[in-house]
């Protein structure tokens, strides 16, 4: 990172990823934490979180944009189901890590990730079934 860019990014005010407290979800709406975890220079991840919130505010205030044809809850749950599929794949990759390259604690975490990946996939499927029922039944 250039020294100029480093000067413009303030020191990290908190660890990354941030504590997974529920009230925080609204300030983490744009970038995946599984993406931001790669940004290790102090303050870099927080800078993108800040920019993300700016994106989100701009988007929410764009009244003239075309509206989705989906009902809000249906569209949002479609997005959530896709994010769960993403997490299923991400956790499965952690669960399939080569145990020979991990210490004992990381190996235990890896073993736990695999069944949780499957469970996350089942939750995504549950939402997808409901969404598909809407399409099949043509309910309004």
């Amino acid at each position: 990172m250039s020294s100029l860019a480093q000067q413009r990014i303030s020191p990290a005010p908190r660890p990354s990823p941030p504590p997974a407290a529920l009230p925080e979800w609204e300030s983490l709406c744009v970038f995946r934490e599984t993406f931001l975890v790669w940004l290790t220079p102090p303050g870099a991840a927080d800078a993108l979180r800040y920019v993300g919130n700016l994106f989100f505010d701009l988007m929410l205030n764009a009244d003239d944009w075309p509206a989705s044809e989906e009902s809000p809850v249906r569209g949002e749950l479609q997005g959530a189901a896709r994010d769960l599929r993403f997490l299923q794949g991400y956790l499965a990759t952690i669960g399939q890590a080569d145990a020979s390259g991990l210490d004992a604690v990381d190996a235990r975490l890896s073993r736990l990730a695999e069944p949780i990946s499957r469970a996350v996939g089942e939750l995504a499927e549950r939402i997808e079934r409901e969404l598909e029922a809407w399409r099949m039944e043509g309910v309004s």
Partner: protein
Amino acid sequence: MHELAQKSNPPTPPPSPPAGLAVSPPIIKPERFEDFMTFRETFLVYFPDAKANGRMRGFGHLLFEMVLETWGQWPDHPEGIFPNELRAAVADMRHVQGAMSSWCGPAFSGSSEYEIRLSRVGADVALAIGELAGRLEVELDSWQGRPS
């Protein structure tokens, strides 16, 4: 480390579709999660215009490519990348939990029978994903005390 970071050769984003068409979130095959690394789908769903949605996805690909090109020069996480990847997954699970709890909780105002049913499923899934995140957090917290 996931495969995409290892090979540092991410796929080219698809061309932007024409403007004016509405899009739904794409099907994400879990094994292809690396194609969707940057933005949450619960964010991109607010870009129903196909061209705008495609451009945001293209920007996300570009940003991730730039990070992949550079991250090797950045400092390592003190506790290693592995537990931090899991902590990040927990944070993303908590995000889904929080979002669905909000959309499908007491403030939900849908009136059709189908939407009410859908919101109940969303609320149930929010609880379940929270329990799964909690299981990972317990393991990660117990890890914090290990000798380095």
